[in-house]
C-alpha cells in the first residue's frame, strides 16, 4: 500500500524521535535537581513539561504496537510537535540569557544540549528501507518530494559546528543526499581543512568557542584560495543579527536551526547551482581574457602559436572566435615577418646607396654641425634627410636621453610673426593627435633666426624610398600601408588636423613594419606659401594634391583621402595616376581626366581595391569615402 512504511521503519522512527527526547527530559530533570534560582526552575519545569508533551504526542501517533504509519499521519505528527518544541526553544533561550551574571559553563552546555535535541526533533524524516535489512519500500513524501532523490550535483562539503549532535545530523543528511562530507569541530580546524582540501561548499556555524563563524568567514574571504567557496551560515533563529553580519561579509545564505531537511536540501542545491553558474561564468571571462591578451600580444608582436589552444577547443562562439583569431594572427605574423625581412633588406640597400652618393653640401644656416650641441640641449648625431623645407637631423636630446629628429625650416617660410604664430598653433594642435601611426611632434624652437621642429625619431625607411628601390609593392603590402595610413588620418581628423601633404616621402615604415606619418601640422607652412611656380621646390610635385586644393577652393579633411588615393595608386601600379611634362599639364589632367583603374594595369589587383582607389581619386569630394573611419571600414572589408 502506497504511502505506508514497514514495522521496522516505524521502530526506527520511534527511535529517532525518542532519542532526543531522552536527552531533553534527562538533562532537564538533572538540572532541576540542582536549580535554586526560581526563574531557572520555572523555565526548566516548563521545558520538562513541553518534553513530556512531545512524548505524549509521539506515543499517540506512533504507539509501540503500531506496524505502519502513513505519510499524512507523519506530517500531522510533525505539525503537532512544533508547538511543544517551540516552548522548549523559548525556555532554553531564557535559560541561556545570562541575566545579570555569568552562566555556569556546565549548566550552559547542558541547556545547549537540550536545545539541540529539541531542534533535532523536527528534522526527523520518515525512515526509509535500508538495503539488505528490510524490503525496499518507496515512499512519496508529501513535503519532501522524493526525499532520497539524488542531489543536483554531488559536492564536497565542509560542515563546521562545535556541537557534535548538529554535526552528525548534518553529515548524515548530506551523505544521504549523495555528497561527500568532512567536518570540523571549530574555526581553527576548519581553516586547516580548507587549506588542505578543495571544498565546493562550507556550512559554517556562527557561534563557536575558539574562532567564531564570522572570523572564519572573514579569513576565507581574505584568501584568494578560499574566496570563491560559497558559505552557508548555520544559526539558531534567535541569532539573526549575526547572520546578517555574515551575509554582509560575503556568506551566501543561512540555514536556521533546527535543520528542516527540505530547506537544507533546497538551500544547498541552490547554492551549488549558483556556484556552478559562477564557475562557468568565471571560466568564460578567463577565456575571454585570454583572447584579449592574445590580441594585445598580436599588437605587440609577441603572439605565440598555441596560446589560444584551450579556448579554441570550446564548442561555442568563443571557441570559434579563438580559432579564427588564431588563424588570422598567424597570417598577420607571417605577413609582418615577410615585411620585416623586406624592410631590413631595403635598409641595407639604401644605406649602401647613401654611402656612395652623399648629397650635395648645403645650405648655410640650415645645416647643423654634427657632434655639436644645438640649442644647448641637442647633440646632433647625423643628417638624415633634406627637402624643400629644410634639413633633418638625428640628435640626442640630453635632457630626456632620447633620440629625436630635428627639422630646420627655411627662414623665408616664416617671414612674419603672424605666420610664426599660426604655425605654432598648428603644431600645438598636431601634438594632440594620439596614434601609433603618427610621428609625434615635440616642440618648435628658434636658434639664430632659424626655426626648428623636434619630433619623435623613427628608425626606418619612407614609402618613397621603398617605391624608388623596389617599384610597385603589390596588393598585400599596399593594403597594410593603406590601413595604417587611414588609421593615422582617423586620429588626426578627430583632432581637427588635416595633413595637407600626404605623400610617400612623409610615410615612414619602421623596422617592425609599422607605418608612421610625418609632418602633421607642418604642411600648412608649405601650403600657406606654395604657389605653382614654387611647387617643384617646395613639395616636389602637385601630384598628390586634390583638385579642390589645386584650385584654391575651400577644402576639408577629404583632401587627405584624395592624397591617400594617389599614394595607394602609386604603390599598386608603380606610377602616378596622372603624369605630365609640366605642372600646368598635370593640373589640367588632374582636373579633367579619369584615372585609369589600377586593375587595368594588373589583373591581380582585386577589383574592389582598384575601385576603392579610384573612388578616393574622385574629383568631387562628395564621391570619396565620407571620412577616414569609413575608409578604415572599407579597407577591412578587403583584407
Amino acid at each position, binding site marked *: 500500500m502506497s504511502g505506508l512504511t514497514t514495522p521496522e521503519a516505524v521502530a526506527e522512527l520511534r527511535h529517532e524521535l525518542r532519542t532526543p527526547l531522552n536527552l531533553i527530559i*534527562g538533562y532537564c530533570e538533572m538540572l532541576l535537581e540542582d536549580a535554586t534560582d526560581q526563574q531557572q526552575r520555572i523555565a526548566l519545569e516548563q521545558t520538562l513539561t513541553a518534553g513530556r508533551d512531545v512524548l505524549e504526542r509521539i506515543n499517540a501517533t506512533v504507539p509501540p504496537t503500531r506496524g505502519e504509519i502513513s505519510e499524512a499521519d507523519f506530517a500531522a505528527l510533525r505539525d503537532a510537535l512544533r508547538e511543544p518544541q517551540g516552548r522548549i526553544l523559548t525556555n532554553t533561550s531564557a535559560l541561556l540569557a545570562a541575566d545579570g551574571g555569568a552562566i555556569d559553563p556546565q549548566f550552559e552546555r547542558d541547556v545547549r544540549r537540550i536545545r539541540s535535541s529539541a531542534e533535532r526533533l523536527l528534522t526527523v524524516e520518515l525512515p526509509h528501507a535500508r538495503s539488505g535489512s528490510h524490503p525496499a519500500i518507496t515512499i512519496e513524501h508529501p513535503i519532501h518530494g522524493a526525499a532520497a532523490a539524488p542531489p543536483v550535483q554531488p559536492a564536497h562539503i565542509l560542515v563546521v559546528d562545535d556541537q557534535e549532535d548538529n554535526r552528525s545530523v548534518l553529515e548524515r543528511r548530506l551523505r544521504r543526499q549523495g555528497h561527500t562530507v568532512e567536518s570540523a569541530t571549530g574555526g581553527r580546524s576548519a581553516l586547516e581543512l580548507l587549506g588542505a582540501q578543495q571544498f565546493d561548499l562550507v556550512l559554517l556555524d556562527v557561534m563557536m568557542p575558539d574562532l567564531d563563524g564570522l572570523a572564519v568567514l572573514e579569513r576565507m574571504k581574505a584568501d584568494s584560495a578560499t574566496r570563491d567557496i560559497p558559505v552557508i551560515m548555520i544559526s539558531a533563529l534567535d541569532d539573526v543579527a549575526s547572520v546578517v553580519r555574515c551575509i554582509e561579509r560575503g556568506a551566501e545564505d543561512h540555514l536556521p536551526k533546527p535543520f528542516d531537511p527540505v530547506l537544507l536540501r533546497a538551500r544547498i542545491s541552490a547554492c551549488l547551482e549558483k556556484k556552478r553558474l559562477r564557475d562557468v561564468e568565471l571560466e568564460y571571462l578567463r577565456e575571454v581574457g585570454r583572447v584579449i591578451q592574445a590580441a594585445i600580444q598580436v599588437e605587440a608582436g609577441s603572439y605565440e602559436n598555441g596560446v589560444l589552444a584551450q579556448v579554441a577547443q570550446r564548442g561555442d562562439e568563443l571557441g570559434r572566435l579563438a580559432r579564427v583569431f588564431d588563424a588570422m594572427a598567424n597570417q598577420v605574423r607571417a605577413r609582418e615577418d615577410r615585411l620585416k625581412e623586406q624592410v631590413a633588406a631595403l635598409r641595407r640597400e639604401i644605406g649602401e646607396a647613401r654611402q656612395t652618393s652623399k648629397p650635395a653640401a648645403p645650405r648655410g644656416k640650415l645645416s647643423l654641425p654634427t657632434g655639436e650641441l644645438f640649442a644647448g640641449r641637442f647633440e646632433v648625431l647625423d643628417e638624415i634627410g633634406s627637402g624643400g623645407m629644410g634639413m633633418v637631423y638625428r640628435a640626442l636630446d640630453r635632457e630626456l636621453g632620447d633620440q629625436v629628429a630635428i627639422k630646420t625650416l627655411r627662414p623665408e617660410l616664416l617671414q612674419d610673426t603672424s605666420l610664426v604664430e599660426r604655425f605654432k598653433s598648428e603644431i600645438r594642435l598636431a601634438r594632440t593627435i594620439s596614434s601609433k601611426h603618427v610621428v609625434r611632434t615635440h616642440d618648435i624652437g628658434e636658434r639664430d633666426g632659424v626655426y626648428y621642429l623636434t619630433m619623435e625619431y623613427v628608425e626606418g625607411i619612407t614609402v618613397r624610398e621603398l617605391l624608388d628601390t623596389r617599384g610597385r609593392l603589390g596588393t598585400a603590402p599596399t593594403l597594410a600601408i593603406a590601413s595604417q595610413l587611414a588609421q593615422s588620418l582617423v586620429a588626426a581628423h578627430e583632432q581637427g588636423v588635416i595633413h595637407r601633404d600626404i605623400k610617400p616621402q612623409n610615410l615612414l615604415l619602421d623596422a617592425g613594419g609599422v607605418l608612421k606619418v610625418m609632418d602633421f601640422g607642418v604642411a600648412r607652412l608649405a601650403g600657406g606659401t606654395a604657389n605653382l611656380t614654387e611647387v617643384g621646390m617646395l613639395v616636389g610635385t602637385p601630384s598628390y594634391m586634390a583638385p579642390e586644393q589645386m584650385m584654391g577652393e575651400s577644402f576639408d579633411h577629404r583632401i587627405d583621402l584624395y592624397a591617400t588615393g594617389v599614394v595607394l595608386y602609386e604603390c599598386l601600379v608603380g606610377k602616378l595616376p596622372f603624369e605630365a611634362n609640366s605642372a600646368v599639364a598635370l593640373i589640367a589632367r588632374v582636373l579633367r581626366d579619369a584615372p585609369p583603374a589600377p586593375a587595368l594595369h594588373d589583373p591581380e589587383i582585386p577589383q574592389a581595391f582598384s575601385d576603392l582607389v579610384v573612388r578616393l581619386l574622385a574629383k568631387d569630394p562628395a564621391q570619396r569615402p565620407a571620412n577616414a573611419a569609413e575608409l578604415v571600414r572599407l579597407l577591412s572589408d578587403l583584407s
Partner: protein
Amino acid sequence: MPKILLVEDNEMNRDMLSRRLARKGYEVALAMDGLQGVTMASSGGYDLILMDMSLPELDGWEATRRVREAEAGAGRRVPIIALTAHAMSGDREKAMAAGCDDYDTKPVELDRLLGKIESLLGKQA
C-alpha cells in the same frame, strides 16, 4: 559503591545518564559501542550493565549474547538491563531472549530505572 557499565554510543546520552547515576551513588564506566562493551564486561568488575540496543557495528542484542557466552565459561552472570528508544511491543521479550534481565525505554524515567537497577542488585546480593 556498585559499579555499572553503561554501553551507549550517543555521547550526550552517555554524559547525561552517567552523571545522573553518579549522583545516585553509582560508579559508572563507559563503553562507546557493542564491541567495547563486550570487552569491558569480560574483564569483570561490574555489578550491572546498562546496554543500549541501537549500537553501531555490534548491536546491543548481539553484544548481550556475547557477554552471556563469555560468562558461561567463567561461571558468573552480571545483570544486564536493555535500554531502547524503539520501545516497540515485543522488544521486552526479545531482550529477555537475548539474555537481558530487564528492559527499559528511552526517554528514561530515572526512578523507574533506578528501581530496576536496585532490584537486580538486591537479587544479586
